[in-house]
């Protein structure tokens, strides 16, 4: 994993496997305090305390094809090796919240990467879940809520249709450039 955006994609896939119907992804940067924060909150099936305690161990996984699960350990490592912190909270039946923070100027902080592309992929390829994706930096902020988009589009026009995808791609990119201005 060379981009934080890919970590976000990976962790969000966990939310989708957990049957979440609403997933909130927040990326906020405070350049004055030199802190970048990423949070992924879902309303999926959650996990019990015993699982929660083991979940950042690479040898814990819910997948059945093999015994290794690197998603959360890699995300945790990305934060802790860049002067930041990692936290995960979960409640069985309620959902899970994964947060990571980074020192923006830290030499080992991974670049954010193609977050716009990841956001687009998530909203267009997961019709079963709704997303609220927010980006924030100082007084600039933007949000994309698929519930809002679905309401405008109405029945019968899926988010995955090429015309909608093209619109969302540009919409997300323009907003991200305006908010972060390529500084992450």
């Amino acid at each position, binding site marked *: *994993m060379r981009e934080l955006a*890919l970590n976000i*994609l*990976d962790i969000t*896939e966990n939310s989708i*496997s957990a049957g979440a119907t609403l997933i909130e992804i927040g990326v906020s940067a405070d350049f004055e305090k030199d802190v970048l924060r990423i949070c992924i909150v879902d309303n999926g099936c959650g996990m019990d305390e015993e699982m929660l305690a083991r979940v950042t161990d690479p040898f814990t996984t819910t*997948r059945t*094809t*093999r015994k290794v*699960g*690197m*998603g959360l350990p*890699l995300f945790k490592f990305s934060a802790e090796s860049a002067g930041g912190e990692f936290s995960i909270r979960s409640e069985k039946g309620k959902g899970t919240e994964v947060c990571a923070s980074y020192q923006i100027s830290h030499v080992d902080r991974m670049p954010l990467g*193609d977050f716009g*592309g*990841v956001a687009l*992929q998530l909203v267009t*390829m997961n019709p079963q879940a709704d997303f609220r994706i927010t980006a924030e930096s100082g007084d600039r902020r933007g949000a994309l809520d698929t519930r*809002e*988009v679905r309401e*405008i*589009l*109405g029945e019968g*026009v899926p988010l995955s*249709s*090429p*015309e*909608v*995808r*093209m*619109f969302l791609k*540009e*919409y997300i990119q*323009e*907003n991200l450039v*305006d908010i972060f201005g390529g500084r992450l």
Partner: protein
Amino acid sequence: MKSLEELRALREKMKSQTDNRSVAGADETVIKVGMATCGIAAGARPVLDALLDEADKRQLHNVSISQTGCIGMCRLEPIVEVFKDGQKFTYVHMTADKARKVMNDHVVNGNPCAEYLIGEN
């Protein structure tokens, strides 16, 4: 800057055109890209983007592209599975360029790219 209001106009436009995407039927090709930690780390995202881009460019209405979890052979990721003509083709060690070639040669023209198939790797 674009606003969500433009979506409304888009919806009106799309309502007026009949969509033959939904009536693809039996000749539909299904493409799946492994998008678990292993796939993502190996570069599955650019592969998926390339597939979607080709499908858009060529206006392929009978192709459904989706993502899936870990296919089970992490060392061969990025993996792309193509279900076509009642058969399954597993392409391994994919890149964006290889994905475009698979779209061209196999999905559109019906000639599987044997050199990228799992049996050859």
